[in-house]
Structures are given as structure tokens and as C-alpha cells.
């Protein structure tokens, strides 16, 4: 996963997750508080520059991660640009472009871009295990955190199993036609579903062997200069929000 690769290799890996969380929340608040599309696009540009130049995320990887969301944004904006008119008498349907809505759409586009860059700043610089620790400090229920921890620790194992199975199926021409591909996919998912039971049983036995009788706890990384990072992130966040509100 591209985000995970960046999260473990960027320059901000050892910056406190709380500080990065504060900066992300400030970015989202700034996106919603922005007074104009120009202001929200400026917020987006600043957050993107912070991730690329500050945290050292490669620009191509950044764009690849954001591309699916931008595709959704493009399709949705296309829908908003067009107006449908139902004519009751003739029972016809007319479609026309709506230039009056342009400023509204531009504002929404700017807001989405700014929020997306805020989210990417967090996800591309912070491993999910650190985000789960951050959520634990925010008093998220233990059951939900256990689900997240188990999900995170198992998804790479299942991903590896999927890749191996697809390679084996492809080697036997299991994906050569649409029908064969659907059949192979069905076999793969069914096999994985069975593995869900087997692997969970194995995990349960392993946890019992370690005397586990409650929530799953793991050692957390200590973050040096945490207080300094949080102060800096808070300052940057307030500045970002002020910029978004004050820029016309």
C-alpha cells in the first residue's frame, strides 16, 4: 500500500502523531471555514507543499494516492454542472448546463481538495498503528480499537494470501476469460472466507497461550520532543485557519 510505504519512510515518521493529528484537524476546520474557493485552494496548496517538501513524500506517490478521490470529485462536479428539467406536459426531460451554480461548485471543489490534502498529510506521514494509539488516547472504546488492531495486523497476511492465490490461478489460466475469472475469483474469496475462521482460531489460541484475557495492548513508540511538536502544530493550525478565514 502506497500510504503505508510513505508512512514508514517519510521525514516526519518520528514527529508526534498528536501534532500531526492537530495539523490535520486544523486543515479540515480551515477547509470548512474558508471564505472563498481561492482561500480553500490556498489551504490545499499549503498542506500539499507541507507533505511534499516538509515530510518528503514523493510528488508522484502523493498524486497517485489522491487520484481516486479526485476522480470521484470530477464525476460529482460534472453532475452538479448539469441541470435536469422535467416537463410535465410533454413528459420530456431536458438537460442544460448551469453557469449560475459555478461559484457554489467551485467552493465545494476547493473545500474537498483542502480536506483531502489534510487527510493525506496525516495518512502519508503516520503509520496506522500510531493512529490507533492516538485514538486510544482519545478514549475510543476498547472493542473498536481491538477490531482495528486485529484488522490492521491481519490485512497484510490476507493480502499476501490473495496475491499468491491469484498468481497460482493465473498460472493455470484461471483468469483467461470473463467466466473463468469470475469462477476463480469466487474460489479465491470462498477460500479466504474459510481462512478467516482458521486464522482467527489460531490467533485466539495464541492469545490464550499468552494469558490474554482482555483488550489487546501493544508497546507504543516514545516520541521525543512531543510537546514542542504539538506547540508548533497548534501554531501552524491556528495560522492556517486564520488564513482561510481572512483571505477574500
Amino acid at each position, binding site marked *: *500500500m502506497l*500510504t503505508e510505504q510513505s508512512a514508514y519512510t517519510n521525514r516526519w515518521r518520528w514527529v508526534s502523531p498528536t501534532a500531526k493529528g492537530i495539523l490535520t484537524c486544523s486543515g*479540515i476546520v480551515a*477547509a470548512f471555514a474558508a471564505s472563498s474557493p481561492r482561500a480553500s485552494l490556498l489551504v490545499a496548496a499549503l498542506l500539499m507543499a507541507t507533505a511534499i517538501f516538509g515530510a518528503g513524500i514523493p510528488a508522484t506517490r502523493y498524486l497517485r*494516492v*489522491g487520484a*481516486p*478521490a479526485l476522480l*470521484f*470529485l470530477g464525476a*460529482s462536479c460534472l*453532475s452538479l454542472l*448539469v*441541470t*435536469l*428539467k*422535467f416537463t410535465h406536459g410533454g413528459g420530456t426531460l431536458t438537460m442544460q448546463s*448551469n453557469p449560475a*451554480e459555478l461559484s457554489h461548485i467551485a467552493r465545494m471543489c476547493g*473545500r*474537498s*481538495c*483542502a*480536506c*483531502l490534502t*489534510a*487527510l*493525506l498529510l*496525516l*495518512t502519508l506521514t503516520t503509520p*496506522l498503528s500510531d493512529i490507533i494509539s492516538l485514538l486510544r488516547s482519545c478514549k475510543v472504546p476498547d*472493542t473498536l480499537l*481491538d*477490531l*482495528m488492531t*486485529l*484488522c*490492521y495486523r*491481519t*490485512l497484510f497476511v*490476507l493480502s499476501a494470501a*490473495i496475491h499468491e492465490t491469484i498468481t497460482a490461478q493465473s498460472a493455470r489460466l484461471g483468469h483467461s476469460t470473463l467466466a473463468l475469472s*469470475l*469462477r476463480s*475469483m*469466487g*474460489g479465491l*474469496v*470462498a477460500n*479466504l*472466507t*474459510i481462512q*478467516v*475462521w482458521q*486464522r*482467527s*482460531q489460531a*490467533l*485466539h489460541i495464541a*492469545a490464550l497461550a499468552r494469558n490474554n484475557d482482555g483488550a489487546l495492548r501493544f508497546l507504543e513508540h516514545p516520541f521525543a520532543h512531543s510537546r514542542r511538536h504539538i506547540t508548533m502544530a497548534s501554531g501552524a493550525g491556528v495560522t492556517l485557519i486564520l488564513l482561510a478565514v481572512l483571505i477574500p
Partner: protein
Amino acid sequence: MHIMEGFLPVSHAIGWSIASAPFVAVGLRSINKKIAEHPEQRMLLGVAAAFTFVLSALKMPSVTGSSSHPTGTGLGAILFGPTALAPIGGVVLLFQALLLAHGGITTLGANIFSMAIVGPFAAVAVFRGATALRLPFGPSVFLAASLADVMTYLTTAAQLALAFPDPAGGFLASLAKFAGVFAITQIPLAICEGFLTVVVMNALIRFNARELREMNVTPREVIRA
């Protein structure tokens, strides 16, 4: 179909989060109860969440040639029940936002409502309805999985239409627009996922009949046959 980060106005984002919260809370309560009775279920639910996540990364053969992926909503609802799927779906959607930038944190409530609440409940309702009508097992599973996808996609279109009503035609015209634009990928996806879920259930009946019987998923005569 995930609504992207920041796309919904703040009032809608908060509103959908409030609407989803009770379902997630009830789901968590039912999971806690299950775990208290059967501690091994904690691992099962966690691994099931990972399974749902990796399903969304699979590329499914689609009749339009578009890149589609299974959602696992129908399969998960039939296997684990719709109540447990709200928190599991919430975790999966949060992971998709954080690991793949699909969806978002501000739109998490809206996405949970469409994918982890409406979809699973629709799947179970259709599956039980079809079973009550004595439809064969395969078509029942196909209808449940396909209609769960269709309901999820229609709910998302309705959420977008509520947030952005058409200036001339209002909510209905906006719903028609959003549903029309996303139908190109979502309808073939629903049909393909329906077939895929049938293939998966058939394989499970062949190789994992005991587990399915314990979960009351399949009628005994289907397993015996």
C-alpha cells in the same frame, strides 16, 4: 461508492454521523455480548474486518470493463448479521479512508450509513424474504448481494442529492443525476457481486458446511443436497 473527504456540507456530515452513531453503538453492544459469551469471536470479527478490507482491494471482472471491486456487504451481512456489520463496516471504511484515501473522516458517518447500515439490512431483508418465498438458495443469495449493492449506491446518491439539490428540479432531479452518473459502474458491479457471492456461498456449502449450519445461514436441505 464512497463520498470523498470534505464533499458534504458540515451540517450534512454531522447529521449523517449522528444518524449512524446509534447503529454503531448497538452493534458494539452486540459484539461485546458475543465476545463475553464466546471470547474466540473477538479474533473472528477482527479477521473478518481485514477480510472485508482486502475484498475491496480486489479487482472484479466487470462487464463494462470499468475497474470495480466487491464490497462484501451482502456476504458479510448473510454470514455475520446486519447488526455486527455496522462497527465492522465503520472500521473498514475508516481504514479505506486512512490507507487508500477512499472516502474520508468527515464523510465517515454518511458512508457508514449507506454501506454498513442500509446495505447489510437490505441484504438480510431480501435474503429472508426470498427464503420465506421458498426461492432456491442461489437466487436468494444473488438477489440479497445485488440488491444490497444497489441500495447502498442509491442511498449514496440520495445523500448527495440531499446535500446538493438541483436548482431547477430539486431533490428528485439531483437524485436522477447522481444515480445516472454512478450507475455506469455501480449496476454492473451489483450484478457481478451477486454472481460472485453465489459462487462463494456454493464453495462454502461444499467445503465449510458445518460452520454455515452453526451460523444458521443455509437451510439444512441445501447442505445435504
